[in-house]
């Protein structure tokens, strides 16, 4: 912000009367985990103290997406964002800004790249470079029906019911080129058409809100921040395929989403968007929420169906596909939350409008959940075809603490990693597939030089092993064997043959498993082996973990070239593990005695002591 802008802003703040103001506070779960509700209470208390609680409203919104600002609030009409708030800040916000008309510069966001203060959301590169279609309401409105209605809510439903036939709705969605956002990328229009064409008196639509991919949280934010957009999308889907009953399957870890959806369904029923004769038309449809109980495989559509039916979420072979034989044996359309949230805008604004954004074969935008070692974690919605570099460095603000970017994991445990050479790759369904990964549900986990890729492969392999339902042998036993080989490599017992073994096993599991979980489970292993073979070899041949993560391969050693034989390390070593090599004027560490305390490395004046396990140090960097 230039000083001229700042003066203008200060003047504007000074001239606004307190009663013209209202406050939006982000109440997304990430902010809640940083105690934003206590801040809200403190702000309300302060207003109450000054008898202003009637004049200045404090509204809680869904997640605004820039979680590293949280807890944060926006004061309108100026649109000033205050970030990283604590309860102690409430008094100054109310007394100084709201009532006194004075800007609080120390609570403004300072951009990490330009080092400038920024006071409005629109000025922050994090938001500026996004194109928010699905998230347009998230964090801007409170999740109730009135706010949704005043933002063109249910206009698409009214249009479809009064002006369009179901076939026309499907045609519009097909023309838009929308593909499923749940991972598979299957054209949504085609899926709907198939369900419509299958004969059957009873049909179902299901919204897949299981979001089992660890590291992804966009579906949660949509369900919590803008639940009515999901409902509207689902009702439109039901109208298009001719379904009378629908389910929303939400994972149990998202109680707030369940609560918000329940409320939204109640409101929609009252307003005749759900129930018999919706909007006084021929069409009737109702909805039920099904809550999961913690199983990753239930996100897979055939497993989801058995889980909705109330049993173990065991997957089944396809075909028959759900559109032919789904819940209770009836034709069923299953769509992801984000897919459905795209539908109202497509019906309202037309396919051509939607298809303007994105690449040739992947239309529209994609919401990515940016997490891991990146400055601005949060939700990022960008047109399909945006490069990784833009997302990580321009929007995400780069890697914190001066570290180097190493890899980005996409598609979670079913996906793969992208490396530096992929930074300029335009991200869409097909480009990612070409390099051995998938867009998945949009989780994007950034790793820096402190992550060991062999350990990452082990982590995902362990995840898939635990989540394997056990129905088919390749997945149940194969993943366990793969994990054992990886553990062997990590513990320093690896042989070069193991790489070939891993690859053979991976291909076998990929080809022979029953459902999508098994078929994609080897992807993280294959992809890390493809892009980080050196690291595997370092573990196997040199018995050394370059990132300093694997404990057995992160021993301390003295670099003979740097050692000046001052003897300091030998004197401070508490277990006398360091000795001088005869006639060589260098010191050496006896690995048998060393207890990895790391004191020698800290004290060595010549930085000659290498290796050692780099503690990740749990810290909010």
């Amino acid at each position: 912000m230039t000083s001229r802008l700042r003066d203008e802003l200060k003047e504007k703040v000074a001239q606004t009367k307190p009663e013209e103001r209202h406050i939006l506070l982000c109440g997304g779960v990430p902010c809640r985990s940083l105690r934003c509700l206590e801040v809200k209470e403190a702000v309300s208390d302060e207003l109450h103290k000054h008898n202003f609680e009637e004049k200045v409203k404090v509204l809680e919104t869904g997640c605004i997406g820039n979680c590293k600002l949280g807890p944060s609030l926006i004061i309108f009409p100026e649109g000033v964002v205050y970030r990283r708030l604590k309860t102690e800040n409430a008094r100054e916000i109310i007394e100084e800004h709201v009532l006194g008309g004075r800007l609080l510069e120390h609570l403004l966001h300072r951009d990490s790249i330009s080092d400038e203060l920024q006071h409005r959301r629109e000025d922050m590169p994090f938001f500026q470079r996004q194109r928010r279609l699905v998230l347009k309401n998230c964090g801007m409105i409170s999740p109730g029906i009135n706010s949704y209605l005043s933002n063109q809510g249910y206009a698409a439903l009214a249009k479809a019911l009064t002006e369009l036939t179901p076939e026309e709705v499907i045609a519009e969605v097909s023309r838009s080129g929308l593909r499923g956002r749940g991972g598979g990328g299957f054209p949504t229009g085609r899926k709907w058409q198939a369900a419509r064409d299958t004969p059957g008196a009873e049909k179902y639509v299901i919204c897949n809100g299981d979001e089992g991919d660890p590291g992804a949280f966009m579906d949660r934010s949509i369900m919590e921040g803008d639940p009515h957009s999901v409902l509207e999308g689902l009702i439109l889907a039901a109208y298009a395929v001719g379904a009378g009953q629908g389910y929303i399957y939400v994972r149990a870890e998202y109680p707030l989403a369940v609560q918000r959806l329940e409320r939204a369904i109640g409101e929609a029923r009252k307003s005749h968007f759900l129930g018999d004769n919706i909007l006084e038309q021929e069409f009737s449809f109702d909805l039920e929420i099904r809550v999961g109980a913690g199983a990753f495989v239930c996100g897979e559509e055939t497993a989801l169906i058995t889980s909705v039916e109330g049993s173990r979420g065991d997957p089944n072979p396809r075909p028959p596909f759900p559109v032919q034989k789904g819940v209770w044996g009836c034709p069923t359309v299953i769509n992801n939350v984000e897919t459905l949230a795209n539908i109202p805008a497509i019906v309202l604004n037309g396919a051509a409008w939607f298809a303007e954004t994105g690449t040739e074969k992947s239309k529209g935008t994609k919401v990515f959940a940016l997490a891991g070692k990146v400055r601005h974690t949060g939700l990022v919605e960008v047109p399909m075809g945006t490069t990784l570099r833009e997302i990580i460095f321009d929007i995400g603000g780069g890697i914190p603490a001066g570290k180097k970017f190493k890899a980005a994991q996409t598609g979670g445990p079913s996906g793969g990693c992208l490396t530096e050479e992929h930074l300029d790759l335009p991200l869409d369904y097909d480009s990612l597939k070409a390099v051995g990964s998938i867009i998945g549900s949009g989780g994007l986990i950034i790793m820096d030089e402190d992550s060991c890729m062999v350990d990452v492969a082990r982590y995902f392999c362990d995840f898939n092993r635990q989540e394997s339902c056990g129905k088919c042998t390749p997945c149940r036993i194969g993943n366990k064997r793969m994990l054992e080989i990886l553990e062997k490599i990590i513990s320093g017992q690896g042989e070069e043959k193991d790489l070939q073994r891993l690859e053979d096993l991976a291909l076998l599991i990929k080809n022979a498993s029953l459902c999508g979980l098994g078929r994609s489970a080897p992807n993280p292993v294959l992809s890390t082996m493809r892009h980080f073979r050196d690291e595997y070899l370092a573990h196997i041949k040199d018995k050394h973990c370059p990132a300093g993560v694997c404990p057995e391969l992160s021993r301390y050693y003295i670099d003979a070239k740097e050692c000046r034989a001052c003897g300091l390390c030998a004197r401070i070593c508490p277990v006398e593990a360091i000795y001088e090599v005869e006639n060589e004027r260098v010191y050496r560490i006896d690995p048998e005695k060393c207890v990895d305390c790391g004191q020698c490395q800290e004290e060595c004046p010549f930085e000659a002591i290498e290796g050692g396990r780099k503690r990740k140090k749990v810290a909010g960097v």
Partner: protein
Amino acid sequence: MGNVRRRFYFFMKKPAAQLKEKAKGKYDKLDTVLEKYKGRGGVLVKVLQEAQEMYGHLPRELLIHVAYELDVPLSEVYSVVSFYSLFRTKTTGRIHLEVCSGTACYVKGMEDLLEYFRENLSLRPGGITDDEKYSLTTSNCMGVCSSAPVIKIGGELHGEMTLEKLQQLLKEHENDKQTQR
């Protein structure tokens, strides 16, 4: 299929009846739930969810009661309970800790949190301390990945965890518990 099921059920019916006698009066609260769902298909998961909410965990006796009342084989009840990771058959401590072991939390060092519990409380995932004060589980992802690493203490989410913050929180919870008693 139906036939096999009926025969299978026959074998377990008798001991179940005896056990039911033993459990008499213990699960009255649950019976109202069972009444609501009885005779409807696809309700097992829902019943178990509500039962766990009431009793904190699902002991064997309760499962037998459910199987008997809903008229499904005990094996089926067990297969559902063991399939879903949210169902617990063991008791939890007075303060239940849940560390997120999702990818974002893994990258941000959740293993240090687990190490803290291991070293200071001799507590491992799935375990409970001898005095039944703390129990610990891990979760795949709590959907708060932007604030990783994340821990849930007594049902409350806390993000951007550091060891200092963790110690502070544990102390707060301990004090809360004491004032409650």
